[in-house]
C-alpha cells in the first residue's frame, strides 16, 4: 500500500520535473517570437516614418512662393493704346460693340513684357546694367497676362500706377531658396550673371519676398510658368472620379453582396461568381485601364481623358473590394439575429433590410471608404485612358478633360525642371496623403460612433 503510494508520488514528481525542463524552452520560444514581432513592427513603422519625413522635408519648400512687389505703371507712352471706347460716344450699340472688340484686340496685341520690364527696372537699383531678355527671366512668364487681365478689367487704369504682386520665375525662386549651387560657372547657370545679381538686390531691397504658396491650391498645372503650377485641376478631376465611384460602386457593390450572400441559392453558378469576384480583386489595375480604354472609349465613345471614364474604370476596380468586404460583414452577423427576425414572421427582405444591414452598416461603410481611398491613389489605369495629358483647366463637368492627383504627381515627377518640381512633387504627395488620411480618419470616426450607438 505504502509502496504504491510512493510510486505514484514518484511518478508525479518525475512528470513535474519533465514539464519544468520543457518550460525554459517554451519561454525562450515565446520570447524569440515576441522579439521578432516587435522588430517587424519597428521596421515597418520606421519605413513609414522615413517616407513621411522625406516627403515632408522635400515638400515643405514648395509651399513658399517668391513674390515680386512691383509698382506697375500703365504708361500711355509705352502702351500706345487709345482709351477704352465709351458707349455714349457711339450712335448705335453695334458700332460700340465693334469698337470695343477692336480695342480688346489691340490690347491683346500689345507687348506687355515692356510693362513688366519697366516695372522691374523701376524697382531695381539705379546703376544696374541688364538687358531686356535677362531682366524678364526674373518674373514668371504669366506675369504679363495677370497685368493685362487687370487692365482689360479696368481700362481706367491707363496712365495710373498700381502696386501688383506677381510671381518670381521658377529659376529665380530656386536661386533664392538656395536650390542652385552658387559656385557653378555661368555656363552651367540657368540665369545670367546680371539677373542673379539683380535677384539678390531685389531680395535685399524687399521687392522680392516669400509668402505662403496658395497658388498650389488655386492654380491649374502650367508648363510655361512653372512657378504658378498648381493642383486645382487635378484635385477637381479626382473629386469628380471619387463622386462617380461612390455613386456607382457603393450601391452596386452592396446590392451584389447582399444578393449573393442572402438570396442567391448555393449552386455551381454562385460558386463560380464568387471565385471570379475574388480573382477580380487581384487583377492588376493596369488591366482595368485597358478594359476601360477598349469599352468606354473605343466602344461607347466616351470622351478621352475625362473623369467619367476614369470614374467608371475605378468603379470596376473598387467593386470587388466592396463586394468582398460586405459579404464578409454579412457572414459575421449572428444567426440568432436572423432567426429572431424570421421567427417574428419577417420576410427574407425585411430580415436583411431591417436587421442585418443596419448591424453591418459600420463595417460596410469602413470597407467602402477604404476601397475609395484605394481608388483615389490609383494611377496606372488612368494613364491608359488618357488622363496623363497635360490639362491646364479645371474640369467643370465629368466630361471635360482632366487629370488626377496621383497622375499629377507622376507628371511633375517627370518634369524636366527637376530643381523646381521636386518639391512640387513632394507637395502634391503631401496633399494626396492628407486626403487619404482624412478619408481613413472619417472611416474610423464613423465606425466608432456607429458601433457605440448600436
Amino acid at each position, binding site marked *: 500500500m505504502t509502496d504504491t503510494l510512493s510510486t505514484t508520488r514518484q511518478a508525479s514528481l518525475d512528470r513535474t520535473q519533465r514539464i519544468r525542463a520543457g518550460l525554459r524552452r517554451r519561454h525562450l520560444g515565446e520570447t524569440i517570437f515576441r522579439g521578432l514581432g516587435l522588430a517587424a513592427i519597428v521596421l515597418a513603422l520606421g519605413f513609414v516614418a522615413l517616407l513621411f519625413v522625406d516627403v515632408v522635408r522635400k515638400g515643405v519648400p514648395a509651399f513658399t512662393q517668391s513674390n515680386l512687389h512691383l509698382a506697375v505703371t500703365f504708361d500711355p507712352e509705352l502702351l500706345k493704346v487709345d482709351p477704352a471706347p465709351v458707349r455714349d460716344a457711339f450712335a448705335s450699340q453695334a458700332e460700340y460693340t465693334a469698337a470695343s472688340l477692336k480695342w480688346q484686340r489691340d490690347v491683346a496685341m500689345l507687348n506687355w513684357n515692356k510693362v513688366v520690364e519697366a516695372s522691374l527696372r523701376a524697382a531695381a537699383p539705379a546703376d544696374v546694367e541688364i538687358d531686356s531678355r535677362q531682366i524678364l527671366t526674373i518674373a514668371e512668364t504669366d506675369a504679363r497676362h495677370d497685368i493685362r487681365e487687370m487692365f482689360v478689367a479696368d481700362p481706367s487704369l491707363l496712365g495710373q500706377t498700381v502696386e501688383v504682386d506677381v510671381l518670381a520665375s521658377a529659376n529665380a525662386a530656386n536661386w533664392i531658396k538656395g536650390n542652385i549651387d552658387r559656385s557653378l560657372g555661368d555656363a552651367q547657370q540657368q540665369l545670367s550673371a546680371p539677373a542673379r545679381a539683380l535677384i539678390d538686390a531685389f531680395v535685399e531691397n524687399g521687392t522680392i519676398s516669400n509668402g505662403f504658396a496658395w497658388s498650389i491650391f488655386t492654380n491649374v498645372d502650367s508648363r510655361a510658368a512653372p512657378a504658378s503650377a498648381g493642383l486645382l485641376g487635378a484635385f477637381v478631376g479626382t473629386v469628380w472620379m471619387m463622386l462617380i465611384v461612390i455613386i456607382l460602386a457603393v450601391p452596386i457593390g452592396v446590392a451584389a453582396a447582399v444578393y449573393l450572400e442572402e438570396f442567391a441559392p448555393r449552386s455551381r453558378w454562385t460558386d463560380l461568381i464568387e471565385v471570379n469576384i475574388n480573382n477580380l480583386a487581384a487583377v492588376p489595375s493596369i488591366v482595368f485601364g485597358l478594359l476601360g480604354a477598349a469599352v468606354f472609349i473605343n466602344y461607347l465613345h466616351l470622351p478621352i481623358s475625362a473623369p467619367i471614364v476614369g470614374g467608371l474604370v475605378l468603379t470596376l476596380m473598387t467593386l470587388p473590394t466592396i463586394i468582398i468586404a460586405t459579404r464578409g460583414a454579412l457572414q459575421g452577423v449572428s444567426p*440568432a439575429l436572423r*432567426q429572431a427576425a424570421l*421567427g*417574428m*414572421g419577417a420576410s427574407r427582405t425585411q430580415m436583411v433590410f431591417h436587421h442585418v444591414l443596419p*448591424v453591418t452598416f459600420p463595417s460596410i461603410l469602413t470597407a467602402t471608404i477604404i476601397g475609395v481611398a484605394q481608388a483615389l491613389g490609383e494611377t496606372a489605369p488612368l494613364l491608359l485612358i488618357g488622363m496623363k495629358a497635360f490639362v491646364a483647366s479645371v474640369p467643370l463637368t465629368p466630361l471635360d478633360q482632366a487629370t488626377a492627383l496621383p497622375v499629377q504627381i507622376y507628371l511633375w515627377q517627370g518634369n524636366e525642371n527637376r530643381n523646381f518640381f521636386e518639391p512640387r512633387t513632394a507637395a502634391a504627395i503631401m496633399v494626396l496623403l492628407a486626403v487619404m488620411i482624412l478619408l481613413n480618419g472619417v472611416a474610423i470616426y464613423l465606425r466608432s460612433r456607429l458601433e457605440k450607438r448600436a
Partner: protein
Amino acid sequence: MDMVAGKVKMTQQSVKSAMNPTDMLERPIRLTARDVTVHYGAKQALHGISIDIPDRAVTSFIGPSGCGKSTFLRCINRMNDTIEGAKVGGTIKLDGEDIYDPSLDVVELRARIGMVFQKPNPFPKSIYENVAYGPRIHGLARSKADMDEIVVSSLRKAGLFEEVKDRLNEPGTGLSGGQQQRLCIARAIAVGPEVILMDEPCSALDPIATAIIEELIDELRENYTIVIVTHSMQQAARVSQKTAFFHLGNLIEEGVTEDIFTNPVNKQTQDYIMGRIG
C-alpha cells in the same frame, strides 16, 4: 444561496398544480402532426413523428441531446425552411390546415405560431422597438397610440413592464439574461399568435430567472397553446400538462405529464426519467 433556493421553492409552489388528466385529454386539438420526417442532406433526423398538441395547454418535448425534439419544434413554424439542405416530409396541420401547403405564406404562419429561442436574442434596438417590430411588419397597429397599447400590454403579459417602464427607449440588449428572454416572449406575444414555441427557453438562464419564466409560461397557457422543448425533466414536470419523449429521432412515448413521469410504459422512457440514459 439560501435566498435563491427559497425563491425557487416558493415559485414552484406558486405554479398551479397540473390539470386534471381527463380534463387535459378532452381539450380540443390544435396541432396534429402525422409521420413527420426530416432529412438534413443524407442524414435522417426524424423518423415519422405523429403527435397531437392540445389547445391552451403546455406540451413539453424531452429527451437526450440530438434526439430530434428541437428539430421537430422547428418544423411547426417551418424554421427548418431556412436551413439549407433540410427536407421535411409528412403533414402538420394547424386547426386542420396543412402548414406545408404551398399556397400558405410562411410569413403568415410565423405570425400565428411565435417562437422563443434557446439564447435570448433581442434585436439590437430599443425595448419598445423590439416589441413593436412584429405588429409593425404585420400591420397590426392602426396608430401610434394603438402601438403603444400593444407594446405595454405585451410587456405586461410577459411580466416585464414594471421592470422596464422607465427605459423603453434603452436598448433591449442591455437587460439581464432573464429579462431579455421575457422581452423575447413579449415580442412574440405582441403579434397575437395562437401557438408559442419555446426552444429550451431557460437553458441560458440562472435558477431565479428560470423560475420567473416558468411561472410566466404557466400564466400564458390560459390564452396560448405552448410547446416547449426542455433538457430539464423537472421543468417538464413543473410546467407541462402533456409530455412527449424523443429518442434518436423517434417519438418513444407521449401522454399526460403525470403519467409519463410516474408511470412510463416504455422501457427507454423509464430509463431516461430515472437518469439511466441521456
